[in-house]
């Protein structure tokens, strides 16, 4: 786990801006990168404390997976977006939100061609999904927090 340097921060900010529309995403936070392009965010105070402690496993919250083709925001990552700026938010109804949180494919109604979208249900962000050419969203919900089928 290491801090993103200035160049990486800029590239990350641009990638989030391109996909999600929020160019100032997490500007006031420290960003850390762990294995497989996993980006975590924490406060600067938190990093100071990390430097003083031993046997640290993690700091802050996992906010995104950063791949060469784009950024997938986690549930928490999407909740930290400034919503007024987002360009790829899709509104979900109750049934769609349930499926989304189960990690099941969700056919989108008003999709405008973006490859990555953020789901929103009753004003709450539900994380990102990758959308196929057929307009079906594949939510990126980790197994441990998926809703189980009843």
């Amino acid at each position, binding site marked *: 786990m290491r801090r993103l340097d200035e160049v990486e921060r800029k590239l990350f900010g641009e990638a989030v801006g391109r996909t999600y529309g929020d160019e100032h995403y997490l500007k006031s936070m420290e960003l850390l990168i762990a294995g497989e392009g996993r980006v975590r965010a*924490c*406060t600067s105070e938190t990093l100071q404390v990390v430097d003083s*402690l031993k046997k640290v496993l993690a700091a802050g919250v996992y906010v995104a997976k950063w791949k060469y083709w784009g950024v997938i925001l986690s549930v*928490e990552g999407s*909740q930290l977006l400034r919503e007024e700026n987002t360009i790829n938010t899709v509104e979900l109804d109750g049934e769609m939100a349930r499926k989304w*949180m189960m990690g099941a494919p969700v056919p989108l109604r008003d999709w405008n061609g973006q490859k990555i979208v953020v789901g929103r249900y009753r*004003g709450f962000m539900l994380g990102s999904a990758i959308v196929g050419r057929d307009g079906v969203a594949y939510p990126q919900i980790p197994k441990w927090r998926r809703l189980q089928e009843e």
Partner: protein
Amino acid sequence: MEYDRLISSYETNLPESFRVNTLKTEPGKIIPILEEEGYQVSPLKWVRNGYTVKPEDRLSHSIWYKLGLVYIQGAVSMLAAELLDIAPGQIVLDMCAAPGSKSTHIAMLLKGRGVVVANDVSTTRVKALASNLQRCGVLNSVITISDGRMFGRRARDFFDRVLLDAPCSSLGIISKDWSIARKWREKDSLIYSRLQKSLIISAYDSLKVDGILLYSTCTLHPLENEDVVAHLLEKRPSAELLEIRPEKLEYLHGLREWHGREYPPTIGRCIRIYPYHSGSEGFFFAKVRKRGEAG
């Protein structure tokens, strides 16, 4: 008789309770949604943002739980973080933190400023801790995997607040699991007591001067409660027990004497909450301030 009240309270199922995670939402937004979805929600009297909910076992399968807007936690357990007098900006250690109920609560009270260090010795239990801190969106958290007994040496005079919710025999939550009572032997409490005494000394040493330590257990055995606090008072003369007065919740004061052992008079400042007081878990709390040399 108190004993009869205790036994009958063990025969009652604990109500399900939860906390609204104010790092992500506010009660005014989420409670109406829950009510709309058929949940019966009532506020807890002794804690802010705490509620009981019916029907039970449903909330943990809801979207709102998975999103981290609500956190399911015992009704009395919520008192621990409240009693620590946390203010934004402080550095707070939760020494035995897994699965993270109290750490996430501490983070809520810090309001994004300061840092919560959530530590646990078990690599298995830390997974649940990490998941819960993630789900609650705690940006100012650090997770460490360490033996709590090391903090007193490695991080001496470092924390503004320390919560030691010590491993214990869990006699306060028998109604959750009767096998706790079946398996319990007095020697178990003795073994826990030894560990708790080491932990409380380490927790105290890791506090800054004027810092506050909250010692809590979900057991009712004096060996794991008053005896541990008395040990701290004996070994660290600068430790000062503070009065605890939870509002709108019945409780008893710490025992002054048990099986011929006499404890210092200030031990009465500790509190014992029995299941019949709260209609929920049984808990013991002691609040200690670290005075300066002159204090």
